[in-house]
């Protein structure tokens, strides 16, 4: 195998206000190599590949492509050089044929400007067979299966003379067989000199397809290993690093007593989404749910809250049946759901803060008319209690910072007197100060006797805030950690399915 590098980066750095997204990264990719990039969320993988793809400009450092030094790349420059990215989501046009999609940027045309279908099909047929992909170029994208669409995306990347292919989680939601097809295509082409940067959370598949693996953490490149010379345990260990000081240290000492009333989640199941999940949470307890994105955590929360369909599943509170049939029903039964995306499902951004705080309460209670004076003073009190920073609660929510928006979401569920709070990603996109405040509030709420289920992709957060942590993988709850068992590394091991004895 040639050892000459197709890409090298030297001291690549990029910072955003408050974050060093990438810190002086030296990296090299060999010709014909498949190199994995691994790291936790926010480790800098995406920033790194986006710099390679030309979407982001580095603050300093340089990129050496095929021996030529570039201070930065533009998207079109990067494509000219032969760097192609296949994103996680399909970016094809459903109604066009495979051939048209592959050559969309440079459609063969007749002298009159019409699309030359037959040439288009001929060229794409040749390309597909070279790549070893057997899909008819005449089929429309919407007629294809998921894996076929993925393969067309890859073929499209090759249509423009790809020399480096960046694959972002290419096997997410692919089954075993499709994965085999994909790996086959990758192997076949790396033998011809293609280099691949392979981003994946699935460590076992890295051993199957990759030559080397590079670990990122906190914007730094930690190490690059030849895959046969490194164990999964060591990779995971490097992804986590030594225990760093987290922004929050819990103040609550005593754990809830055995006798406290309990929320029991019993056998929630929907084939292919959530697999027979059961656990229970006591009053006064914060139950964290960890796992990779796509492991079924949010889906489980939506089922519990009565939004999505489930095949089986019952919810008991203090022994009584409370399974919600709809969000309205869930709210009447004292369950609140702080969704992961404030903007799209949590808040009515253009409406005033006080309306957002009172809306669940009004949806829950009966009656026809509003008492505006009482509403104003009550919501005002709630906003003050949670320290929402605004000159007036009559201002639209969109004028608030992310942290204060999150406090409004919390305020609306507390205003409706929710006893059970399901909090999905409580601190996404909010600054450290507000994070600390949110954690303190969650602690206080637990101390008051609320039942809190917290879904989080931030393993530090799970470790610092939860009493117990359940971990989901592939829709199933694979482990529940307690006390000293809870640490970032263990959470990550279970989430990625590394080194389990059972």
């Amino acid at each position: 195998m040639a050892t000459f590098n197709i890409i090298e980066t030297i001291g690549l750095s990029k910072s955003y206000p408050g974050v060093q997204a990438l810190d002086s990264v030296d990296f090299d990719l060999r010709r014909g190599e498949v190199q994995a990039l691994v790291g936790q969320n926010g480790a800098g993988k995406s920033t790194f590949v986006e710099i390679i793809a030309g979407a982001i400009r580095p603050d300093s450092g340089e990129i050496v492509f095929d021996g030529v030094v570039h201070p930065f790349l533009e998207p079109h420059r990067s494509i000219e050089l032969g760097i192609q990215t296949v994103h996680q989501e399909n970016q094809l046009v459903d109604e066009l044929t495979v051939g048209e999609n592959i050559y969309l940027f440079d459609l063969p045309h007749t002298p009159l400007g019409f699309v030359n279908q037959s040439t288009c099909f001929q060229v794409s047929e040749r390309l597909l067979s070279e790549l070893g992909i057997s899909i008819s170029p005449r089929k429309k994208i919407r007629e294809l299966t998921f894996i076929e669409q993925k393969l067309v995306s890859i073929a499209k990347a090759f249509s423009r003379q790809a020399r480096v292919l960046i694959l972002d989680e290419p096997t997410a939601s692919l089954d075993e067989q499709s994965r085999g097809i994909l790996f086959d295509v990758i192997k076949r082409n790396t033998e011809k000199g293609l280099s691949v940067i392979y981003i994946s959370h699935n460590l076992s598949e890295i051993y199957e397809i990759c030559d080397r693996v590079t670990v990122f953490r906190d914007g730094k490149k930690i190490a690059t290993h030849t895959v046969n010379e490194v164990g999964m345990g060591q990779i995971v260990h490097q992804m986590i690093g030594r225990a760093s000081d987290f922004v929050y240290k819990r103040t609550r000492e005593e754990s809830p007593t055995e006798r406290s009333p309990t929320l029991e989640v019993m056998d929630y199941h929907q084939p292919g989404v959530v697999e027979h999940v059961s656990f229970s949470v006591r009053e006064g307890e914060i139950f964290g749910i960890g796992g990779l994105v796509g492991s079924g955590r949010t889906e489980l929360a939506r089922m519990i809250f009565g939004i999505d369909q489930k095949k089986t599943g019952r919810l008991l509170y203090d022994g009584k049946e409370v399974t919600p049939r709809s969000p309205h029903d869930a709210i009447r039964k004292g369950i609140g759901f702080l969704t992961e995306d404030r903007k799209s499902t949590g808040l009515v951004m253009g409406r005033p803060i006080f309306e957002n705080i009172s809306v669940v309460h009004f949806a829950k209670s009966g009656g026809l008319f509003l008492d505006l004076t009482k509403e104003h003073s009550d919501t005002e009190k709630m906003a003050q209690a949670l320290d929402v920073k605004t000159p007036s609660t009559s201002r639209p929510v969109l004028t608030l910072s992310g942290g204060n928006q999150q406090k409004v979401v919390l305020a609306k569920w507390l205003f409706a007197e929710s006893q059970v709070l399901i909090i999905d990603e409580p601190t996404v996109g909010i600054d450290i100060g507000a994070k600390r405040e949110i954690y303190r509030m969650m602690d206080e709420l637990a101390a008051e006797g609320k039942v809190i289920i917290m879904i989080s992709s931030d393993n530090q957060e799970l470790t610092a805030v939860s009493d117990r942590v359940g971990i989901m993988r592939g829709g199933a709850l694979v482990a529940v950690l307690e006390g000293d068992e809870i640490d970032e590394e263990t959470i990550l091991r279970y989430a990625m399915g590394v080194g389990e004895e059972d």
Partner: protein
Amino acid sequence: METPRAVSRGKKVSRITQSYVLIGLIVALSVVATIVNPRFISINNIINVFQQIAVLGIVASGVGMLLVAGEIDISVGTQVSLIGVVLAFIIQTVTHIPAGSPGAWLTPFAIPLAVLAAFVLGALLGAINGITVIKSRAASFIITLGFSTVYSGISLIATGGGAYVLLGKFSTLGRGKILNILPVAIPIFIGVILISFVILKYTKYGRFLYAIGGNRKAAFVSGINTVRVTLTAFIVVGILDALAALILISQIGSALANSGDTYSLDALAAVIVGGMSLTGGRGTALSIFLGVVLIGLISNSLVIMQVNPFLRNVVIGAIIIVAVTAAQYSAERE
């Protein structure tokens, strides 16, 4: 960190000015019309203007409240026409049942029967629109555009291209005057606007309309029964269309297949010009009122200034385009 203060002050101002701009426009238009023809400002003409906009105002109230929830009903005009046809048909037919024939006892009840039928039909049309929009999950504008054509076709079939006439019956609502000066339609119009005001500002239902229009998913997760609230809004539109049809047909004295068709676009134009957002979640009863007054004044002032009255459509069309463009720019600034 205190930047939110500045941002929100800017927003608050821009919202209030939207009403001020409308009031300014209305005043300016009145001044020009008065200079050209002093008769414009006379009590008689002002009453005249309000009588002309009463029907539009009632239709626009329904359209406006529905638009707060982010839905558009473009079939309101043909609903008014169809309800009008049914109303006039019942009055004409039942009044003329020959004495001695089996249904003759119904004759004295012709009007209550027709009015009841109008409201039932209105509610029914609203429910059909609403259920279809909700079940199809398609854009309400397109669904109601389809229904608009259906309703119009039914009206044409029912009238055979002709008209049903009231023969002097049922004229009070449209032509009657309180104390010989104030047309009955005006207090009804004002009443509907006031009720809309109360609903939008002081009821839970109104609040839910704003929440749904502002963010349907968030409203659903917050426990609002989005289906029921949306359906109710469509039914309210149908009921107000029935009320509008009663007044309109009473004013005209007969029902053609297309008597009310123009209200579809005029009502939507009025609420948009009044400052409601096409995507919902914004606007008040004042927006509806000012929008309706402005549209009414444009028609009236063109007539009174003896400008070609057909210019009306050109002016209203231009105002809609300006209003929507301005709203889009200010939304993007946010």
